[in-house]
């Protein structure tokens, strides 16, 4: 599904990702953890080329997205992304947020897209908010709309960048529940998160990053309970 080979990413002279090589299989749920500034977001954003790739290859379903000849807009339709701060379109209703991309990109008829949007909103428990504007929603609701919006393009992979860290603690649960459902349905997911509970329960694998390197990858049990890496242990001792 996703292959990353010798990925390097620099901002100016500052190398933020160093030599990352890994593979993520279809239907796998990967959680990425690591201290602030370790490059988790940058890694995720390289997977749909929201950040230009400095060096190395990223293959999605066999297509090298680092290649400038690749039609990145086509690839991105297969790669949904959910942001920490939701990034809903404030000038559009919830339904229009979800409908926009399929309508403009897939040339589907309005009726068709409309129905699918409503289904998706039902799935995230917000069918009744279809005509509301984002500003009237709580953070948790916003994030669930953002997930529905990303799903509207029928992506093969979903990327989540700290989807719950901007939420009030009581609103986190609803969002995680939606993500759990998604994982159970077999969606391939890469999730940057500090929610260890989620990682343990849903994650197939955990990546631990530090200073732009992939320090360790393994099952949640391997990483959380039996790590042999000093840096991982130090990090976990602080956040658990």
């Amino acid at each position: 599904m996703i292959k990353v080979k010798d990925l390097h990413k620099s901002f100016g002279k500052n190398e933020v990702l160093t030599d990352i090589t890994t593979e993520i299989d279809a239907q796998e749920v990967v959680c990425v953890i690591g201290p602030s500034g370790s490059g988790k977001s940058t890694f995720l954003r390289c997977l749909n080329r929201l950040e230009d790739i400095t060096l190395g290859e990223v293959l999605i379903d066999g297509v090298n997205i680092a290649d400038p000849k690749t039609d990145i807009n086509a690839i991105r339709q297969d790669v949904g992304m959910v942001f920490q701060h939701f990034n809903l379109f404030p000038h559009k209703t919830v339904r229009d947020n979800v409908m926009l991309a399929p309508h403009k990109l897939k040339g589907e008829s309005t009726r068709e897209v409309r129905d699918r949007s409503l289904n998706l909103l039902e799935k995230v428990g917000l069918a009744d908010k279809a005509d509301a504007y984002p500003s009237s929603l709580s953070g948790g609701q916003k994030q669930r709309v953002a997930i529905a919006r990303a799903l509207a393009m029928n992506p093969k992979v979903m990327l989540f960048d700290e989807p719950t860290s901007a939420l009030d603690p009581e609103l986190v649960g609803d969002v995680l529940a939606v993500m759990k459902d998604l994982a159970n349905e077999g969606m391939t997911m890469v999730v940057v998160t500090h929610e260890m509970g989620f990682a343990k329960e849903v994650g197939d694998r955990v990546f631990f990053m530090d200073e732009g390197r992939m320090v360790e990858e393994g099952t949640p049990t391997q990483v959380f309970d039996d790590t042999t890496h000093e840096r991982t242990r130090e990090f976990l001792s602080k956040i658990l």
Partner: protein
Amino acid sequence: MNLSPEAFVEVTPYLLTGLWYTLIITIIGVLIGCVIGTIFGIMRLSTNWFIKTVASIYVEVVRGTPLLAQIFFIHFGIPALFNFNFDALITAFGVIALNSGAYLAEIVRGGVQSVDKGQLEAGRSLGLNGRQTMRHIIWPQAVKIMIPPFGNQFIISLKDTSLLSAIAVTELMYQGQTYASITFASFETYLMVCVFYLLITIPASILLRFTERRLDHS
């Protein structure tokens, strides 16, 4: 102290004529300025070095020189060299359009840039291309951000038309000067001129503040 109260009444019809010109020049000038501003504002956002530089030069030169110098250069300087001339009213529209255009270009640029970067990323990551993202996501939000500074520029341009009195355009200020030069009732005349400007600018800025607040809430 020798106030002549009848001057206040007598000057009014003159000023009303002037006000009409002031409004027409401002409205048409700023409308053309909007077109110029949108074009040059988007040019300034371009990644193409040349396009960007051209737009920057226009904006910086206009913003770096006094409007009065621009008026004289356009109305007297250019005809003197190229041996053609135009009506003062044409200069009036042109100079207000050119001048407000440069300031509006900055407003357009600022508006687009102040849309949260996450919006662009959200659009692009859905698979929309740059143009689609601009059109459906960035631009509608940017326009909303631009409304208050646009209103502000309108008020500034309205006041700026007063400088056109120097080239005998019969706007509000010019009409006042004419009346004052006939009657020497300078105090009464210029007081009324100020009142006439305030009659437009104060309601306009109240409306503007109201709009601003409404936009803030939504």
